[in-house]
């Protein structure tokens, strides 16, 4: 088994009445990227600041590289944690040059120091920028310098706090692939915080979904998408609609759309909420169909149809752009799906 980079055990932090982080435990292996995702105010940034040493916890433990940095009895200050951090606004020191910024965290002097700064500049592709001042750089360049500064002392763990949120949308996709490549090349262990699910799925080797201070689920991006353990995760990662169902066989659940194959184990007769993703189902215009198209969103390659079921609940279905149906069309569902649906115990 690979060495652990960061381990949190039952970490809890409250601000007065509100619980920002509640009983969070996880283990991140060395060289992995963990993307923490959740709506704003879910506690992901507080969790990051607890690991970085900028907040004091109420309960629990944090280990970095196997060493305890936070427990009931121990608080190691940030400067002795071996934790690198890249802030949302990059926080480049405005009075220092790019090289001086990168060299700031290095403990060694002389040619070794220069060599390391040179390596980092090459890594981020800004070899000629060493003597520039931060305000002379573009947003994307500042971002990379902040990354190089944090990586230069070779920290046990690198924390990234919403690092792409200050960039324009079109720049963001380009920069994030550059950053991921840099991180993978340096084999850094990373915790990356974002509110953008696309970014989380793209960046993370593992993705942790947080809600109301709790770490709801932590798994690989694919697993998280296909097998959410909680309706919140299902809705937050990807698009999902929920309808009512009753288990009527070993792999079958009865719904108003018909019988669907499901993944999981429930005893027959259990009432469940069934999660439907738009690409899981196929629709066919039929006059006597149970569903009625009530909205249509053109997405270029596809149409996203919103269909009202007899109970009044709605589901969405994705169709190729050639399948153009009018509003009010009655549809039936093609139930011979390859995907199994996910069921949750009824709320």
């Amino acid at each position, binding site marked *: 088994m690979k060495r652990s980079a960061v381990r949190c055990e039952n970490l809890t932090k409250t601000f007065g009445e509100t619980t920002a982080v509640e009983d969070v435990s996880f283990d991140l292996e060395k060289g992995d990227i963990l993307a923490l995702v959740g709506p704003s105010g879910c506690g992901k940034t507080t969790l990051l600041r607890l690991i970085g040493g900028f907040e004091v916890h109420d309960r629990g433990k944090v280990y970095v590289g196997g060493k305890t940095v936070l427990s009931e009895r121990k608080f190691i200050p940030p400067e002795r944690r071996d934790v690198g951090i890249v*802030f949302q*606004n990059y926080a480049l*020191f405005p*009075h220092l040059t790019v090289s001086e910024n990168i060299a*700031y*965290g290095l403990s060694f002097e002389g040619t070794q120091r220069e060599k390391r700064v040179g390596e980092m500049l090459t890594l981020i592709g800004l070899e000629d920028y060493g003597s520039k001042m931060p305000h002379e750089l573009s947003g994307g360049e500042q971002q990379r310098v902040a990354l190089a500064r944090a990586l230069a*002392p070779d920290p046990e763990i690198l924390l990234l706090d919403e690092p792409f949120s200050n960039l324009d949308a079109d720049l963001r996709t380009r920069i994030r692939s550059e950053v991921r490549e840099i991180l993978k090349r340096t084999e850094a262990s990373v915790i990356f915080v974002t509110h953008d699910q696309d970014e989380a799925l793209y960046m993370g080797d593992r993705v942790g979904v947080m809600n109301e201070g709790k770490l709801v689920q932590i798994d690989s991006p694919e697993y998280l998408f296909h097998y959410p353990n909680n309706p919140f995760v299902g809705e937050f990662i990807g698009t999902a609609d929920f309808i009512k169902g009753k288990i009527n066989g070993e792999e079958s659940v009865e719904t108003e759309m018909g019988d669907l194959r499901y993944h999981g184990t429930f005893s027959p007769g259990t009432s469940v909420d069934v999660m439907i993703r738009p690409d899981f189902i196929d629709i066919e215009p039929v006059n006597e169909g149970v569903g009625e198209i009530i909205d249509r969103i053109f997405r270029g390659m596809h149409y996203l149809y919103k269909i009202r079921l007899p109970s009044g609940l709605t589901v969405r279905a994705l169709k190729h752009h050639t399948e153009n149906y009018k509003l009010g069309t009655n549809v039936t569902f093609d139930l011979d799906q390859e995907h199994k649906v996910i069921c949750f115990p009824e709320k």
Partner: protein
Amino acid sequence: MFEINNEFKRKINRAPISVWIFAVLVTVAITLPLVYLGIRAFGAGVETWGLVFRFRTVRTMGRTFALVVSAPLLSLGISLPVAWLTTRTDLPFRRTWSVLTALPLVIPSYIFAYVVIVALSPRGMLQQLLAGPFGVERLPSIYGFPGALLSVTAVSYPYLLLPLQASLRGIDPSLEEASHSLGHGFFSTFRKITLPQLRPAIASGGLLIALYSLRDFGAVSLMRFETFTFAIYNQYLTPFGGRMIAAALSMVLLLFAVSLMIMESKTRNKSQFYGNGKGNSQDPNIIELGRWRWPALIFCSFVVIIFLILPVTILGYWATRGLAAGESLQMAWSPALNSLHVSGLAALVVILAALPIAILTSRFSGKLSQILEKFTYIGFALPGIVIALSLVFFAVGTRLYHTLGLLIFGYMILFLPLAVGSIRNSLLQINPKMEEVSRSLGRNASETIRSVTIPLSKNGIFSAGALVFLVTMKELQATLILSPLNFDTLATSIWHATSEAFFARAAVPALLLILFSSIPMMIILIFWHRKGKYEKISGSL
């Protein structure tokens, strides 16, 4: 096509002609006496200039230099810890300390010098206290450099404290956090990251204090420490050609003052470059002091006791002692009325003179209005003694000499930049769309100024008036030279009594002066807090 557009634009953005005429008149009026002084000084001939560049002047220069360098340094030693403690730590009663440590700003330097003299002079109050138990007969003299430095620093260190507090509050907290995460501890982070961020505030506050020391007359004259201002005054009193030497010395002082001014404005331009471009809404990190709370509290108490509580207590003691010994309150009554009279008049006149210039420079910005604005800065750079002297040269032999009108005119030159700045700032915070709405509803430019611009900047105008009232009340040098004969204000009566060692006689006017200056100070603070009412409305447009 492009030129036609510009022509149209000028039509929209043309200030009413009456505003222009008034602004130009004011500017010419405040510039003329100085030009005249320059002509006289340079026409003074080789003989006078020979007298200027003798050994005595070199020593004056040395003394001035010593004060101008030491006062900002000592102020930094006081201001930096206080600013840091009151903004970045969990020091108990932080707000209260913030206010109390800034208050010495209302004390004029000559009142503090008076307190220092009665308390610390060789046979002063401290010696009396020590004489009993320890048999101390004499203390080392406080006159000269130490007394002048102490007095000037005591009343000017808030010029450094206030910008330092603002900067410390404004620093992006993630800079310090980034430094910590890169392995730097508290002291290393403070030295390498925090302090460099404070550099612009230190430079501009320090230069303001340097300028204050250069211009100060009250403290150095009472401490008999002959810097330029005091030397000029002494020459001015010397018969037979002294006035020509005073004029020449004024030109030298002017040179220094203007260079300090230029340096100060340079640092301000540069500071924009340091500002954190990405506005941060995060509050700065508050450091828990723990056991260090106690030494911190002792330090802050020490500052407040030395610079605020002790001076006021000593004044109170001497006032009661004076009254008990038969000093009459009547003596203070007529200077007090005079002070209120001239200060009120000056506030009114200066505001009227400042309004057109402030409106021109903030609303109808162009080449000519920028030049006008530069000229109003004359009062910022010039020590009161230089302005007073230029007016003396201008008016001597005419009916104007030693009239109230000339005195008020002197105040106008001195304090116009304060008023223009204050009104201009409040105008700049009003969204110009307000005025555009008024124009679109059929009001022309001057109607708009009357019905929209001036009412909206009422707060700025009132606080400018309060500010001018406050500084006029404290003004000493110009008042000494320009007042009508036998016309004493609080400031001049304190100065006369102290320099003639009638200590008990100076205490009551000094207390009155502090009281009167606190009232406009409070008005300014109240307007400061009320600020934002109009701005919020206009900001949401």
